[in-house]
């Protein structure tokens, strides 16, 4: 179990580093997908299959595609070789060190990392409790005394995101398209007049032909 964790974490970290430093933008997107996959496997190792499947479904199945489409919209991808160098890397390094120290402090308050102490980590939950965890999650989303407010706010947030994205990304209707529509209507009405003339001419023909046939 430990060795699997070490391998998966190493792969995830490597993929994360490649995401930000790879020169080829499409490869960076692919490495991002690999890091999502690594995180999904880590969720699985925490016995949370639902979170792992959610990670696959939403991050790899939807957000990665969105990111790749966004990349393809903004640049000529085939020759994309970006210099992956950020000029403020010193401040970035300091901030990430501080964040790392913060995380380690907080986590070690909760999980005492001492391999000699029995029960150093939380004892594993019963298998039944884990199997029921998805049902418990569902109940907690909509129970009045649990997370229903957050749930409804999440749906409002999704609605706002959808509306905002459509406003931003919708192709603008340009003025000449309006003109185009008007011109098409003019042409169509001209066609209809031409048809009417043809029909009238056809109607006249038999009546003219009859006197000639006598």
């Amino acid at each position, binding site marked *: 179990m430990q060795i*699997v964790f070490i391998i998966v974490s190493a792969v995830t970290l490597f993929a994360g580093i490649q995401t930000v430093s790879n020169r080829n933008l499409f490869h960076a997107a692919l490495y991002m997908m690999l890091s999502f996959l690594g995180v999904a*496997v880590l969720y*699985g*190792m925490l*016995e949370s*299959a*639902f979170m*792992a499947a*959610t990670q696959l*479904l*939403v991050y790899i*199945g*939807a*957000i990665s*595609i*969105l990111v790749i*489409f*966004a990349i*393809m*919209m903004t640049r*000529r*991808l*085939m*020759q994309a070789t970006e210099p992956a160098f950020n000029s403020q890397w010193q401040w970035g390094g300091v901030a990430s060190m501080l964040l790392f120290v913060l995380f380690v402090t907080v986590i070690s308050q909760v999980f005492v990392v001492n391999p000699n102490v029995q029960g150093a980590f939380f004892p594993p939950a019963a*298998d039944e409790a*884990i*199997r029921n965890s*998805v*049902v*418990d*999650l*569902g*109940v907690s*989303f*909509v*129970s*009045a005394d649990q997370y*229903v407010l957050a*749930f*409804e706010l*999440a*749906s*409002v947030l*999704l*609605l706002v*995101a*959808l*509306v905002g*994205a*459509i*406003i931003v*990304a*919708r*192709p603008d*209707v340009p003025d000449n398209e309006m003109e185009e529509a008007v011109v098409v209507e003019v042409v169509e009405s001209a066609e209809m007049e031409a048809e009417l003339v043809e029909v009238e001419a056809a109607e006249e023909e038999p009546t003219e032909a009859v006197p000639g046939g006598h």
Partner: protein
Amino acid sequence: MLSDLQYIGLFLALSPIFPAAPIIIQWILSPKKPNAIKNSTYECGIEAVGDSWVQFKVQYYIYALIFVVFDVEAVFLFPIAAAYGQLSLFAIGATALFIILLADGLAYAWAKGALEWI
């Protein structure tokens, strides 16, 4: 749960063998005579004109975007659906409200013409 996921992990580890086997057999059996004409990209039998870069329609992006929103909505709805036996009337009302809010989003997208393919 861990033994369940161990099965999936084993499956993931073993499954590359099944597509690899035919491809390796082909690699052994096939002729290897590349030349410039064979390796040129296919463009209905003529020489490829211009770089392989296509005008990307914004519409693809909008469809993917709406899909992300509905995907996240479905992720919320799955545990609620599985827990249906234990929900109160209030909970069912909350679920209905959730679905209605997202249907509003779709209605907005439709009305604003974001769903047209052109």
